[in-house]
């Protein structure tokens, strides 16, 4: 076990995979600088700089994956995937079906996501619900270094497309670049447990589609992921003070969703709170409600999500994203029903 930051854990997983398999290549904007440790080791053929042309290089990633490479295509921020959506919606996720199961697209899309540092509504979205809505696409959202490394290894081993989302509050370099952390006159509510932790060398793969119980409880199930998972854990003491023992589950994968874990926990507690930094409508939180309804469960249900365009102003932004106060209030309201 070695102590690693969230970002270096991902780097380490990539390095491990690139060492084992020559077909693994990294494509993206600025990767010479962003992935400089991989670049100086593996060179420009395997860590390849792209123009700002997401539609072209994500689409090319699909073709490259079909023809034998195992590309990791970096879309700097997940918000920017909008200009390249075709590559995922109509190409990468269709090939397996269209070819009658004879051809697949082993593509990893890596993108930074999430807010909490004042970058406004075009740079701080999560969008994992929108992405997970495409049949055939896996979407993973790690909340700590070990999961980040393990999920990246699993993504690289997967024969179908996987989107790997890296929350910017957990990755120090993104917070430095985009939050302007270097100036020292700003501060961010960074969850320490998520930004640094023990990682095995080489990392142990974390299966895609498998959630994890982070805190045991019997009164209420809280399903969350990414940075919101840490906000939930921060809310636990105030709930315990009121005699509420909440079970907290880190979903880790949005698609496929760990339906068994969700149903088991919900059946046990009878109350479900989803805390999701992504948009509230037509996404993960609604999907979880559907999973429980389909399992025949009648549970109390509430959600704390992002409800509209993420405001630029820091005060408004902190209110818009799931925070400890909103989580505690929602949990208490459910417990007192």
């Amino acid at each position: 076990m070695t102590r690693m930051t969230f970002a270096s854990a991902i780097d380490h997983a990539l390095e491990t995979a690139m060492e084992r398999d020559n077909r693994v290549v990294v494509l993206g904007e600025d990767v010479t600088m962003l992935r400089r440790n991989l670049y100086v080791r593996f060179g420009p053929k395997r860590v390849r700089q792209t123009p700002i042309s997401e539609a072209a290089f994500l689409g090319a990633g699909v073709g490259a994956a079909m023809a034998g490479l195992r590309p990791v295509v970096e879309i700097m921020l997940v918000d920017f995937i909008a200009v390249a959506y075709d590559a995922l919606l109509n190409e990468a996720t269709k090939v397996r079906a269209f070819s009658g199961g004879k051809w697949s697209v082993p593509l990893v899309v890596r993108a930074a996501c999430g807010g909490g540092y004042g970058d406004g509504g075009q740079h701080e979205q999560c969008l994992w619900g929108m992405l997970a809505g495409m049949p055939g696409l896996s979407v993973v959202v790690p909340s700590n270094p070990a999961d980040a490394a393990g999920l990246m290894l699993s993504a690289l081993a997967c024969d179908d497309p996987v989107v790997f989302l890296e929350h910017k509050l957990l990755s120090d370099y993104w917070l430095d670049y985009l939050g302007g952390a270097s100036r020292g006159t700003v501060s961010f509510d960074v969850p320490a447990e998520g930004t640094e932790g023990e990682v095995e060398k080489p990392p142990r793969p974390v299966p895609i589609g498998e959630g994890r119980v982070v805190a045991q409880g019997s009164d209420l199930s809280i399903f969350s992921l990414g940075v919101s998972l840490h906000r939930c854990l921060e809310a636990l003491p105030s709930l315990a003070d009121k005699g509420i023992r909440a079970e907290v589950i880190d979903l880790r994968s949005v698609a496929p969703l760990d339906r068994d874990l969700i149903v088991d926990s919900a059946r046990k507690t009878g109350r479900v709170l989803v805390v999701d930094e992504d948009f509230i409508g037509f996404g993960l939180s609604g999907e979880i409600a559907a999973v429980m309804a389909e399992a025949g469960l009648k549970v109390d249900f509430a959600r704390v999500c992002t409800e509209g365009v993420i405001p630029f102003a820091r005060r408004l932004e902190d209110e818009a994203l799931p925070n400890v106060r909103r989580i505690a209030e929602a949990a208490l309201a459910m417990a007192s029903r």
Partner: protein
Amino acid sequence: MMKPDIERLYRQMARMRFFEEAQADLWDRGLIPGEMHLGIGEEAVVAGVLDHLEEGDALALDHRSTPPLVARGVDLASMLLEVMGEEEGLCRGMGGHMHLFSREHLAGSSGIVGSSAPLGAGFALAAQCLSPGAVAFSFFGDGAANQGLVLESLNLASAWKLPQVFVCKDNRWAITTRTRSVTGGCLARRAASFGMPAYRVDGTQVEKVWVAAGKAVRRARAGRGPSFILASCPRMEGHFLGDPLLRVYREPLKQTVEIGPPLARAMLSKPLAALIQRCGYLGNIGRTIATLGGERYLLAIDPLRRGAKLLSEEARARIESEAKSEVAEAVSRAMERRGRND
């Protein structure tokens, strides 16, 4: 041939520069959150183009949107309040510096690289239908010129003869990547191949930008279609404030300590036989940083200094002092409003 009013152009350039410097100061003090992409170095391009703007014309802007908005006459204090995230800001604190909108000025911006091209095409389409003679300006960088949506917009504007002026601010960098290393062919020839006039100008010479933009705007107003202006200019404050590449120059020791050890580990990982090759790769990174530093610290031609040479010393000093006090007044007005909220 008409001559530019150099004093008027220089006044706009000075206003933009002092406004950007005020933003840099507020950002350093932690009063502006998130990223801050300054337009320092682009002033002559913006001033030379927008001197031709008339009421009813539209602006489609990118992540360096404040200089054009300053030139357009948007209230300076309301922009400062906006980038500080205040309720009284231009967009009620909802937009922030990459997403500034002023409906009364028909000006919109976006932080998505290249999206000012289709937005401008839409503004131009509306102008063509609703107010013939009006023009839409799209500002973007050389990095954005490789976005599909920019290329599609060039074609659309040409096919529909839209009254649109594409202004490509060529600072030779796409974030930390040399644009040349990821670009095929020449951007001006590329635009020309869509069937529109393409002008290459030295974007540090405001009078040259003014002449080229005049031709483009006259063509658009007359309903003859779009034009493309490729204006070279320096990027003096990096991609954004706190740019890690510029920091290598500003705090070399700290950066070496942070970046060095993991790089050394990567260099020395097995197989060691690759070490010589790896030295070459490391050299590539070194060259990129050296190029950036060279351009910034040795070769950068400040468009304001160039513009000042066209004026008498008295005129330069008077214009600068007026612009400086206008911006200082806006800053104190914004800080006062902000203080009232705290």
